[in-house]
């Protein structure tokens, strides 16, 4: 069975290629896939017909206990035959239905085959979760098939409606499945059905949820609206999905579960009331339609109601009748849809008021249509008659239900007659249709289906034997499928239905006003539209009320929550420290005072530069506090970062207005201050309680030993970064690379990988030959921007600073420093080089792309981790290499140095990327617009 599913998958994937090669004719080879399913099922007939099952199981998701458990029994055998056989015929039909070059044909062919495969999954699955997977796959494929004409609004609407309704049903069904499966401890239906069921409300809930799924899939009231709307699909799709396959999924599910669940409280009332009501309402609506396809669609809704009511009744006789009806309906309804497709194809209309003289157009078509419609009406000796007899026979002891079924059948007979009359009657005043001959590929599929319907009637006894094992699941079967079972009440009812339907059709003229008036006040489509509209309105109201679009407001809500929830928890439960020292050293309060003043002034500052410098002061103050706390690495990094931040800020602030704009937020100023104070108080509270809340011993107590023994380094913080918690650092490197890339992509309008700005040749030494050049980019700057002193100093110290950064990098393992600090120092060297010499100087200093440095750094860091893995350690594990090198002496190399070099490179790459973006590229913007507002380096390179 798995082979069949794979075959469908392969065929679906190959379909676009086939269509490109052969056009619509590609449907012929594709039809082989469902045909193979048909032949396979046919070959399994002996195995199934004696009540056995064909089982295949493949392990799939072990953790969920979900296997690909496939099981072929009588009911799924019947469905497989229908899916395979009708699928193949529909594909053959499609080969001529579509014109060469039809838009979306490749997708259509692929999706149709995939749909057939999904249906097979659905009917072959023994595992309920697998069944659900197939179920939702058919929903998605049907969405794509119904929405085939994507350019039509009605097509999109229909597809979305089918998707929404059936998916909602499917989800509720899934919940029901889970309830059943969790109770039984398995999701295999064959095992669940053999176990005692859970009791009471639990089971009732599960059953109702599952029924909602089945009823929505089979378009039963109150979910029936999507099926008529789905007639926007191409006719082959309607014939396959909406007559033979997808809508039968609900019937199949009801039929599958009925042997075990039909006795559960609400099951029978729900399926019988909903089924019969759907049958009557659908049949009545079908009498009103003038579009032949819609007539069939409402007829299908009606027949599905009948099928659900019968298969869901859960008696052996009804089960046998239901299975026979399932077969009969698929045969005649698919044939009729295909006939409508031929008519539509040949005449360009499906409106019965515009059709005339079709009998003379094609006799064979007429014969096929009469056979199929007669089967639908239940005329002997067709299979429709046999199955309808069985249905009546199965319900002779339930008069109310039987009355409903007979009334529904009367309607069925009437709309069958109306279909034939509508399609083939001669109408005065309407031009007889003149059209060319019908292609064999179009006519053969419906003819085959109608022919099988004709043969299956007399062969009812064979059918009886084949379908009996399914009915046997429910107990002893009294009934028999037969063409003639003597003068039974069922025969009388069949005659009554035929006569009544004929009469109803005969009085269609006087009946028309009644038909037009007597309809439900709200059509299903309107109802759906109303529900969706209400949801939409509610969503807009809720979104409009909560999503005001204001960033300060959102942040304010988050912060107020922070104050209220953790703040309240802290006050109520926090272990407060009893005594707290005022300060450790006398320097501490001084620094904190400076920080406080600077921070408060920064809040009120009106100039950007002032505010930035004040914030920078708090940063340096924080670094001082780090020093006092005993964290030299932190302090070093903080000093460097603060300096780099100021430099980067200045690069951008030269372009922004000097002052903050006039403030439209004056009204909320006090609110914001209150929130700020509250959050500050909560943060202070956290500082006080968090320290006292420690329960477990400090894991970092072991760090110093770990650092020396396993990390081979004495600087515990650095070893923590590159070894003990190297994964964190790895993540951080990734963040830095992303940030750098983000900066570059926000600023560069072109690719940043293009050629870097080169110093224009004319600028070199052209002004004053003979004068020494300290920085080669210097002469490209405007004279008033240049600072010879700066150039000289930079020229003298640049290499020293870079060397110092390398020293920090290498010594960081045992002393303050490391990759971060080293990288920042090297980055700052580049910053001053750029400040002194402009963007061309930057290229001179770093003639390599920032992206390359970032990538190299990340690769180095990742690589050092992977190498450790390759040589047998765990990822990012360090090793120590001691060698005596000639001339150098003893060398102690710890492999985590390579990781630190990666860090170093990434930080340099980040700074370089920022300089290239916010420095050099912004320079170029300034040149392009000629409006420098700041006072920083503006070069004249391109103008020279």
């Amino acid at each position, binding site marked *: 069975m798995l082979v069949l599913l794979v075959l469908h998958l392969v065929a679906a994937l190959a379909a676009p290629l086939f269509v490109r090669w052969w056009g619509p004719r590609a449907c012929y080879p594709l039809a082989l896939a469902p045909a193979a399913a048909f032949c396979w099922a046919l070959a399994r007939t002996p195995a199934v017909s004696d009540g056995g099952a064909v089982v295949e199981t493949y392990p799939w998701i072990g953790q969920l206990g979900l296997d690909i458990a496939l099981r072929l029994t009588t009911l799924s055998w019947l469905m497989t035959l229908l899916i395979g056989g009708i699928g193949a015929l529909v594909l053959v039909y499609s080969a001529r239905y579509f014109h060469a070059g039809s838009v979306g044909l490749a997708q259509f062919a692929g999706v149709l085959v995939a749909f057939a495969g999904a249906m097979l999954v659905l009917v072959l699955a023994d595992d309920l979760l697998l069944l659900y997977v197939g179920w939702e796959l058919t929903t998605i494929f049907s969405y794509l098939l119904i929405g085939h004409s994507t350019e039509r609004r009605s097509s999109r609407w229909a597809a979305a409606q089918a998707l929404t309704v059936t998916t909602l049903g499917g989800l509720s069904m899934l919940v029901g499945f889970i309830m059943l499966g969790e109770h039984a401890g398995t999701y295999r239906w064959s095992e669940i059905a053999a176990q005692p069921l859970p009791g009471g409300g639990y089971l009732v809930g599960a059953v109702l949820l599952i029924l909602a799924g089945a009823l929505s899939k089979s378009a039963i009231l109150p979910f029936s609206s999507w099926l008529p709307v789905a007639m926007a699909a191409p006719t082959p799709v309607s014939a396959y999905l909406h007559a033979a396959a997808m809508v039968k999924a609900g019937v199949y599910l009801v039929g599958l579960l009925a042997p075990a669940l039909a006795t559960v409280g609400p099951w029978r009332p729900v399926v019988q009331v909903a089924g019969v009501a759907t049958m009557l309402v659908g049949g009545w609506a079908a009498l009103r339609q003038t579009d032949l396809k819609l007539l069939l669609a409402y007829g299908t809704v009606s027949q599905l109601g009948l099928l659900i009511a019968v298969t869901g009744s859960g008696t052996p006789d009804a089960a046998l009748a239901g299975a026979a009806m399932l077969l009969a309906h698929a045969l005649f309804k698919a044939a009729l849809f295909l006939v409508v497709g031929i008519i539509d194809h040949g005449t360009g209309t499906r409106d019965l008021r515009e059709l005339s003289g079709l009998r003379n157009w094609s006799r064979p078509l007429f014969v096929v249509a009469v056979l199929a419609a007669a089967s639908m009406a239940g005329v002997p000796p067709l299979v429709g008659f046999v199955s309808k007899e069985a249905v009546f026979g199965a319900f002779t002891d339930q008069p109310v239900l039987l009355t409903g079924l007979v009334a529904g059948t009367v309607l069925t007979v009437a709309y069958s007659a109306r279909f034939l009359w509508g399609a083939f009657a001669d109408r005065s005043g309407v031009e007889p249709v003149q059209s060319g001959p019908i292609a064999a590929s179009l006519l053969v599929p419906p003819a085959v289906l109608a022919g099988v319907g004709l043969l299956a009637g007399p062969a009812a006894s064979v059918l009886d034997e084949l379908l009996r094992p399914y009915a046997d699941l429910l107990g002893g079967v009294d009934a028999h499928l037969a063409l003639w079972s003597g003068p039974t009440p069922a025969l009388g009812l069949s005659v009554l239905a035929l006569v009544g339907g004929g009469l109803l059709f005969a009085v269609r003229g006087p009946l028309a006003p009644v038909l037009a008036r007597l309809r439900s006040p709200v059509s299903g489509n309107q109802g759906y539209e109303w529900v969706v509209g209400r949801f939409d309105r509610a969503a*807009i109201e809720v979104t*409009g009320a909560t999503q005001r679009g*204001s960033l300060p407001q959102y942040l304010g809500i988050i912060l107020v929550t922070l104050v209220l929830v953790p703040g309240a928890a802290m006050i109520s439960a926090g272990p407060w420290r009893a005594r707290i020292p005022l300060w450790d050293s006398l320097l501490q309060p001084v620094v904190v005072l400076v920080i406080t003043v600077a921070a408060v002034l920064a809040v009120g500052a009106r100039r950007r530069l002032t505010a930035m410098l004040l914030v920078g002061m708090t940063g340096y103050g*924080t670094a001082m506090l780090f020093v006092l706390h005993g964290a030299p*690495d932190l302090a070093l990094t903080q000093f460097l970062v603060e300096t780099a*931040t100021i430099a980067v800020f200045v690069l951008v602030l030269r372009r*922004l207005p000097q002052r903050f704009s006039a403030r439209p937020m004056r009204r909320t100023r006090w609110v914001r201050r209150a929130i700020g104070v509250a959050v500050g108080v909560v943060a202070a509270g956290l500082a006080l309680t968090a320290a006292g809340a420690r329960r477990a011993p400090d894991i970092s107590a072991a760090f110093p030993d770990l650092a*020396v023994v396993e990390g081979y380094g004495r600087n515990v913080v650095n070893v923590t970064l590159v070894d003990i918690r190297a994964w964190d650092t790895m993540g951080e490197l990734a963040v830095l690379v992303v940030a750098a890339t983000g900066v570059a992509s926000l600023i560069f309008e072109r690719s940043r990988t293009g050629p870097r700005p080169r110093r224009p040749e004319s600028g070199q030494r052209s002004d004053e030959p003979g004068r020494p050049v300290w920085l080669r980019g210097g002469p490209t700057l405007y004279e008033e921007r240049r600072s010879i002193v700066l150039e000289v100093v930079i020229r003298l110290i640049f290499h020293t600073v870079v060397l110092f950064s390398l020293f920090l990098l290498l010594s960081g393992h045992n002393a303050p420093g490391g990759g971060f600090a080293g990288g920042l120092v090297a980055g700052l060297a580049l910053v001053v080089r750029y400040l002194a010499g402009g963007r061309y100087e930057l290229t001179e200093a770093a003639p390599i792309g920032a992206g390359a440095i970032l990538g190299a750094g990340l690769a180095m860091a990742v690589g050092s981790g992977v190498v450790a893995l390759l040589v047998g350690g765990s990822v990012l594990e360090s090793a120590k290499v001691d060698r005596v090198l000639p001339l150098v002496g003893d060398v102690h190399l710890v492999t985590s140095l390579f990781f630190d070099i990666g860090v170093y490179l990434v930080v340099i790459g980040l700074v370089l990327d920022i300089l290239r973006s916010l420095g050099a590229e912004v320079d170029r913007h300034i040149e392009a617009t000629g409006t420098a507002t700041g006072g920083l380096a503006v070069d004249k390179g391109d103008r020279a």
Partner: protein
Amino acid sequence: MTASGAGPTLVLVLAVAVLVGCGVILLLERSLTRILLGVILLGNGVNLLILLGGRSGGAPIVGTGAVDQMSDPLPQAMVLTAIVITFGFTAFLLAVAYRSWYLTGDDEVPDDLEDRQIIRRAVRNEESAVDHGGEGPNGDPEQVDPEPARRRLRRGEEA
């Protein structure tokens, strides 16, 4: 550098409160530059807060002093990472501010346009743009429009 041992001191807690509070006030502004300065202040405050989770003491470098007199290295490693990330984030926000200025002439964060549109819809009691069934003005005659909803027809008449 006094190595007086465990826990935060009152002035350090005060510093955390001031930095976080001022950071939040700036964060609630509309100017991206101010928001960014708020982020930096907040970052400094939170870094300090994390650091206070561990004891103070001598530099955590083995060999410079007694191991039990060392400051806690774990929060230091975390904060070191945080400092550098804040730098990357600062650069990114600055680039956003510059971009905003470049495109609109200032660096204010405006209200979200989509959200404003939804609020307008809510005020006018409208639905969102729905892909209604049926045909538009250029309807396709071949197309089935089963039971055209009367409501829609009426709406068409009004139009």
